[in-house]
């Protein structure tokens, strides 16, 4: 119960972390074009501010939980950095807060997908570095498989084009391919052999 309240309290503080006013907070909850304009400099500047006060991890997790936390942190993108870093790598203030939020939610016993939903509701699908396999993302996930299948079919059709190739005769084997000879043969209209 207390943990849950902690998250509810944390959520607005996450958003207000670097907010310069109510307007900025509003925009960040629903990422809009302005999100893009927020410079990386801001994010780095904040990391500099952070230098004065090192934060300590809020809770100690069991090794399995710790592994889960790191895996989730690697799959969440820093919402304010232009570099595409995950919050596991980023030194920005918001990433540090998101990291501790992930840990607290794990302590609370939330599932991975609940945690991802929590962040995508606040920052948009933009923060999900491991795109969930639903909706439009199915296009993304299935296209390589379709390409694999389609390419395989084309390859198979090509290799089977003339039935099984006849075993090459010994005489043909002895003569290495000569493209000049081949060119002459084609120019003169004569087939090989």
């Amino acid at each position, binding site marked *: 119960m207390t943990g849950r309240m902690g998250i509810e309290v944390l959520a607005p503080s996450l958003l207000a972390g670097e907010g310069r006013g109510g307007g900025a907070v509003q925009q960040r909850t629903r990422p809009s074009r302005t999100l893009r304009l927020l410079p990386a400099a801001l994010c780095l500047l904040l990391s500099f501010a952070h230098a004065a006060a090192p934060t300590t991890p809020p809770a100690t997790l069991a090794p399995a939980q710790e592994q889960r936390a790191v895996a989730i942190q690697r799959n969440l993108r820093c919402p304010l950095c232009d*570099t595409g*870093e995950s919050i596991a790598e980023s030194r920005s203030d918001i990433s540090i807060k998101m990291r501790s939020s992930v840990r607290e939610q794990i302590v609370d016993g939330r599932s991975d997908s609940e945690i991802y939903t929590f962040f995508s509701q606040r920052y948009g699908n933009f923060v999900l570095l491991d795109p969930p396999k639903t909706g439009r993302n199915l296009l993304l996930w299935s296209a390589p498989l379709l390409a694999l299948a389609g390419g395989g079919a084309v390859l198979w059709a090509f290799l089977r084009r003339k039935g099984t*190739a006849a075993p090459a005769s010994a005489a043909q084997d002895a003569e290495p391919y000569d493209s000049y000879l081949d060119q002459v043969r084609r120019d003169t209209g004569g087939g090989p052999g």
Partner: protein
Amino acid sequence: MLNLISFQSSALGSLGQIALLGALAFTLAGLALAFVGGVRADARVVEAARRATWAVFALVTLGILVLLVALLKDDFTVRYVAEHSMRASPTWIKITSLWGALEGSILLWAWLLSGFAFILSLTLRRDALRPWALGTMFVSLLFFVGLCATIASPFTPVSGLLADGRGPNPALQNHWMMAVHPVLLYLGFVGLSVPFAYAVAALVTGRLSDHWVVVTRRWTLVAWVFLTAAIVAGGWWSYETLGWGGYWAWDPVENASFIPWLLTTAFLHSIQIQEKRGLMRSWNVWLIVLAYSSTVLGTFLNRSGIVQSVHAFAGGPVGPVFLGFLAFLLIVGIGLAAWRAPALRDEAEVPAPISREGAFLAGNWLFLVFAFMVLLGTLFPTFVEAVQGRRDASVGPAFYNAFAIPLGLGLMLLMGVGPLLPWRRADGQGLMRALVPLLASGVGAALIAFVFGIRATGVLLTIALAAYNIVGLGLLTARAARQSGGLGRTLQAQPRRYGAYTAHIGLVVLALGLAFSGAYRQDAQATLNLRAAAPITLLHEQLELTGLRQQDRGFGTSAIASVSIDGKPFEARLNTYVQAPGTLFPAPAVRYGALGDTYLVVTSIDPKGQWASIRLIESPLVSWIWWGTLIICLGAGLTLVSPARPVLRAAPAGLAPATD
């Protein structure tokens, strides 16, 4: 109207601009001459086009030398120098600033391209392909020289004279790799323009000479070596400076350099089918057109800012122009290929599925799917933004790894079986006999690794495939040495074959490095106090902060933390540069080891000098990636050594594959 030149404001600027405009004039003239020479089959006109490349090369060389002199002399009347250099920088930074920003990098590109055109003009044979290959080079030159003589000129007049320049991008002066990686990458990208030129010439004339295959393969291989070295050098640079202990992040711009690599690797294998069997002619032409287009796509992604990336440091008006050039290349390439494909139809019989050709083609299939997957992941967020009007999607390593690992393992599987297979068709029983020792060693290696505690599936499979590949190549080499009476003799007779084997071994080493460092990287963070009572234990290492100091370097400052890790001294830095006073650039301290690296990065330092927050990373076998790449490049270089002609002729009969 673009103001290109002002004689009053800058002497060097005017000279550079005149040189580039002159190069543009010769490029246009050369293009027209090549076209006329090709249509009329007039050798004298073609000769004039050929010599036009010399003038272009000379003039672009003059342009780049002028820029270099301006950078070294701190001549801030030249726009590029004023915007991207400053007095306090050390000399090597001033030199690398030449390609540290958009205009200079395009000028370097144009210069390398004109250099390649010059070499090509000296090596081209007098055949029907010559005017069209030259003409295609002139089209590429027209684009790049045209860009750097007009909208992306480094020499356009400055409005007001600055006392000191604005300085280079701080991220690009943090490491000496700045002198290596971009140049290698451009050599790789530009190198592909020559095979592309040959491909277009083949399409226009509808014929492929004997010379075509040899020359195209050779140029592609050279470009491929540069591209391989450049990609890994970029990874090493990232490892050395970004402070995250990784080397590859599936960043859009990294992907953009990887796609041409995948396509070129596919090409280098399928061209051998054409060389040996006269098959896959139009397919090869397609591949090289795609590979060259993908380098332009990569540059477009890098320069347009449509994707978010660590490399998004340069924008400007060139994005749409690159997109236009890309569209032009694709339309012309596809149009020509559709028109001429019937002329390039294969006449030899189709190979059996289980044959050397079959393995190469299956490899092509995986390489293309790989390239498609990377391209899709890179562009998907942009597609979503185009449809939804806002950035609402990201594609991270989770997506890429999900496909890249199985595809990579599949390629390793084919890489092992390919050299065993004979051309045309393999006899199934013979193949099984040849495969048994390989499969046994693969399974054995994986079992040993399992006993030693390795549980990650990807790593176990990589180990198994590594052993399978190495045993396969070892057996083939031993058999060939026995047949030809000595290892030295077979190496001399077949430099190309053993070059390829060496490159494959390098790739195995690299794959092991990727697998282990990806799966078993450990990472921990702590804050260390100066004069602490006892050392802190982190990842089984004893850490102690032994000193903190500040160093003024003129163009910036470094905060240096001296840390003793298990008694060995490490000095990690946080650099700042005068151009960006608030931004910290970490310079990690790395101790390289054959079995693993110890990597220390300072994340923050107490302004009062009492503590430092650090991150310690231990990753196994990272250095195998760098050594593996070196082996790959050496092996690829060895394949360029040509044996004596009679030996080449005798080779297929004398040194038969393992299944015979």
